[in-house]
């Protein structure tokens, strides 16, 4: 529905697909980020208060670092969900050379050429894993110092 609605607005064809992918990933990440920002120990916040830290400094130096493990576990889930969202979003769109279009297309020729449909599945799975690993890599770089039990 979103695809058809946005498709009629004269936007580039990829926009509605991106909207679906974003829609699927936004809430898990947003909710986990909020939870993460709230995860700092009350004592840790009191300590910042005793240092006369401003709310901005408390956010930057305590709340944000404390939220990172939460943010990254949400991003890992979202990385794969975004691929699913993009493929599903492509199905009703007019994009023919995308992965979703290819799946739809090869599905019709499955009895003649089953390998083509399986190939698209493998490409889709690889793409999901690649996105996941990309997030893991960024996490390793950003949360270098996190103890094992948090990550």
């Amino acid at each position, binding site marked *: 529905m979103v695809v058809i609605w946005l498709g009629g607005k004269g936007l580039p064809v990829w926009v509605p697909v991106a909207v679906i992918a974003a829609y699927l990933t936004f809430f898990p990440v947003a909710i986990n980020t909020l939870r993460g920002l709230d995860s700092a*120990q009350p*004592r*840790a916040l*009191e*300590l*910042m*208060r*005793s*240092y*006369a*830290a401003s709310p901005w*400094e408390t956010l930057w*130096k*305590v709340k944000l*670092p*404390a939220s*990172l493990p939460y943010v990254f576990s949400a991003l890992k889930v979202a990385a794969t969900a975004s691929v699913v969202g993009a493929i599903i979003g492509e199905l009703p769109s007019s994009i023919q050379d995308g992965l979703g279009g290819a799946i739809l297309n090869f599905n019709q020729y499955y009895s003649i050429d089953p390998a083509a449909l399986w190939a698209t599945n493998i490409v889709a799975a690889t793409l999901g894993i690649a996105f996941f690993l990309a997030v893991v890599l960024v996490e390793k770089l950003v*949360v270098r*110092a*996190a*103890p094992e039990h*948090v990550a």
Partner: protein
Amino acid sequence: MSTEAAAAVSLAGVTKIFERGQTHALDEIDLEIAPGELVSLIGPSGCGKSTLLRIIGDLVEPTRGTVLVGGKSAHQARLDRDYGMVFQEAVLYDWRTVAKNIALPLELAGWDRSRRTDRVKEMVELVELAGFEGHHPWQLSGGMQMRVAIARALSFDPKLLLMDEPFGALDEMTRERLNLELLRIWEASRSTVVFVTHSITEAVFLSTRVVVMSPRPGRVAGVVEIDLPHPRTADTREEPRYFELATQLRELLRGRTAEAVH
């Protein structure tokens, strides 16, 4: 006793009633602490000693009464960064190394990098953690974590060190060692310390004065001057006077709180 303006902490009629549940936590506390003293607040759990400490540190507002810290309001003293706080848990920031944990209050106070580095080095030596600057908190033992917390609290030279059962979660041996270290640090820095504890022997060993509190509502049941000579060493714990003072405290505690103290 010094004049009011010079008192490190001056409490008059401090009363705290928690709205929720109408808990009467503290009732008419009057207390003067002179600069350079190490005063312990002791009492059974629920006597409001931690609440009193937090009122002094402007983390909790008193319902009634006045709190002056070095002649200023507690609020102003907090804004002026006069407080170093240490809690029962070390509350170190896991994503920061030992050195960066100690440097955090200095960053907030706007010290430049080279000054911070010098200060951190000094503090690490003071608490005997040289060589561990690059470690992360979870790589340290409980006692070492507590020493980092003390170094962090002292790094910016606060006028008043507020400690809320800092050694309560540690084993007896580590605790006795850290007691000695705290005395050494206190003698070196000449800061004023308010120390909350539920250990009678710890209170006697560390303090210049012990304030005994009774529970619900928290009141001052008595103040005991600890006239053991300084510097105190491990042998202090074997002196007859040490046991006399411990007995005196125990009786004061028992007098008001028969069931709460065994």
